[in-house]
C-alpha cells in the first residue's frame, strides 16, 4: 500500500517536472555556470588533486541545494499540498519525494563528475570503484537530508535563502567524508582502504532517512 502510493507520488513528481522542465533546466545551467567559474579560476595553473576533489563537492553541494529546495515549495505555491494530504499518508509522500530527489541528484552528480573528468585534465581518478561508489552514496546522503529540510523550508516565510544555511551544518559530516573518499580515489588507494568512509556514508543516509520518517509527519501535517 505504502509502496504503491510512494510510487505514484514519484511518478507524479516526474510528470510535473517534465511538464515545465524548470528545475532540470535551472540545474543544468547552474552546473554549467559553476563549472565554468571553476575553469576560469583555475586558468593555466595546475591545482593539487586535493583542492580539485574539494571543489568537485562544492559544485555538487550547491547544485543539489539549488535543485532540491523546490521539492515542497512548488507544492505550497500551487496549493496542491492539501490535496496530497487528503489523498495519501505522509510516509508515502516522503518516500516518493525522497526517491525522486535521489534520482535527480544522482543523475546530476554523474553529469557533474563526467564533465569534471573531461574538462579538468589535472583531475585524474585512479580507483574508479571508490569514485563512483562515493558519488552514489554521497547523492543518497544529500537526498536523504535535503528532502526533510525542503519540507521545513516550504513552511517558513523566506523560502529561498534559508535552505543552504540549514543544510550545511547537517550535511558537513557527509561532505567531509565524500571529499576524503574522493581524495583516496585520486591517490589510487585500494578499495579496501575506503571501507571506513563508505560505512560512514551508508550510516549517515540510514540515520537521516529513519529520523526523517519519524518526524516528517509533524512537518507535513502542520
Amino acid at each position, binding site marked *: 500500500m505504502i509502496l504503491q502510493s510512494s510510487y505514484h507520488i514519484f511518478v507524479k513528481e516526474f510528470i510535473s517536472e517534465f511538464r515545465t522542465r524548470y528545475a532540470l533546466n535551472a540545474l543544468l545551467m547552474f552546473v554549467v555556470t559553476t563549472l565554468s567559474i571553476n575553469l576560469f579560476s583555475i586558468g593555466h595553473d595546475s591545482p593539487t588533486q586535493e583542492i580539485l576533489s574539494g571543489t568537485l563537492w562544492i559544485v555538487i553541494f550547491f547544485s543539489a541545494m539549488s535543485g532540491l529546495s523546490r521539492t515542497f515549495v512548488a507544492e505550497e505555491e500551487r496549493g496542491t499540498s492539501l490535496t496530497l494530504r487528503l489523498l495519501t499518508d505522509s510516509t508515502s509522500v516522503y518516500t516518493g519525494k525522497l526517491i525522486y530527489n535521489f534520482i535527480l541528484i544522482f543523475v546530476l552528480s554523474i553529469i557533474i563528475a563526467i564533465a569534471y573528468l573531461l574538462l579538468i585534465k589535472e583531475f585524474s581518478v585512479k580507483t574508479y570503484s571508490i569514485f563512483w561508489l562515493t558519488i552514489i552514496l554521497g547523492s543518497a546522503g544529500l537526498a536523504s537530508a535535503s528532502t526533510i*529540510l525542503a519540507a521545513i523550508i516550504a513552511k517558513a*516565510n523566506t523560502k529561498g535563502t534559508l535552505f543552504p544555511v*540549514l543544510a550545511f551544518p*547537517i550535511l558537513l*559530516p557527509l561532505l567531509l567524508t565524500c571529499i576524503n573518499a574522493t581524495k583516496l580515489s585520486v591517490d589510487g588507494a585500494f578499495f579496501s582502504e575506503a571501507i*571506513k568512509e563508505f560505512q*560512514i556514508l551508508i550510516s549517515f543516509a540510514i540515520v537521516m532517512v529513519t529520523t526523517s520518517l519519524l*518526524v516528517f509527519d509533524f512537518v507535513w501535517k502542520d
Partner: protein
Amino acid sequence: MKTWLKIAVSIWITGIIIAGISFPMVRVPETWWQFPLIPGLEEKARNIIFHVPISWATVVAFVMSMIYGVLYLRKKDIDYDLRSVSSAGLGLLLCVLATLTGAIWAKFNWGSFWNWDPRQTSIFILLLIYGAYFVLRSAIDEEERRATLSSVYSILAGVTVPFFIFVMPRIMSGLHPGSLGDEQGNLPVLEFKMATNMLIVFFASLIGFTLLYFWMYSLKIRTMRIERQIQHETEIN
C-alpha cells in the same frame, strides 16, 4: 532553584576558580594544594578546569534543547518550546565561550588560534547549527509552526552529532587527545592520567558548571514565560 542551592553553587564555583588559578604547579607535588607540572603543557594545563566543563555544559544545553523539542512534538505544549529555546540560547553562549577558551589554549599550545582539528571543526559546526536554528525561528511568525519546525530541526541536527563526536576524530588526524594517530589511544574521551587532586578539582568543576547551567536556565525560562505573557497581553489590548 532554591536559594540555598544558589548560594552553594556560587561558593562552589568560586572555590574552583580560586583552586584552578592559584594552586601552584610544581615538579614534585608535596601537599594536597600543589598540582604536578606536566611537560609540554605547564601552566596552560589549568585551562582544562574551565575549557572542558564549559564544552560539557554546551553539550548538556544542546541535548536538553533537543529533549524539549521531542517533548513539544509529543505534547504540543508551548511551554516545552520555551524551554527548548531557552536552553538553546544558553547553549549558544556556552558554545562561544568554549570556542574562545579553546582558541586561546590552541594559540599557546599548538601555535595558532585555529587549526581545523576535528574537535574545533565540531564546535564550529555546533555554532553553525545554533545560528541556523535561530535564523529558522526568526523566519517563521506563527508561534506553533515555529515551535514545530525548530523542534524538528534540532532533532535532525541532534542525530548528526554522533558523527562529529565519534566518527570524524577517527578518520581525521587532529591535535586533541583521542584523535587519529594519538599514542594515548583512539578513545572518544581522554584517558584520565591527571593527578588525583587535579582530577577532583576537574570533576568538581564539571559538576559546578552543570549546576550553573541549570541556574541560568531556570532564570532564562522564567523571563521567557513573562515575556510571552506580556506579548500576549499587549496583543489583546
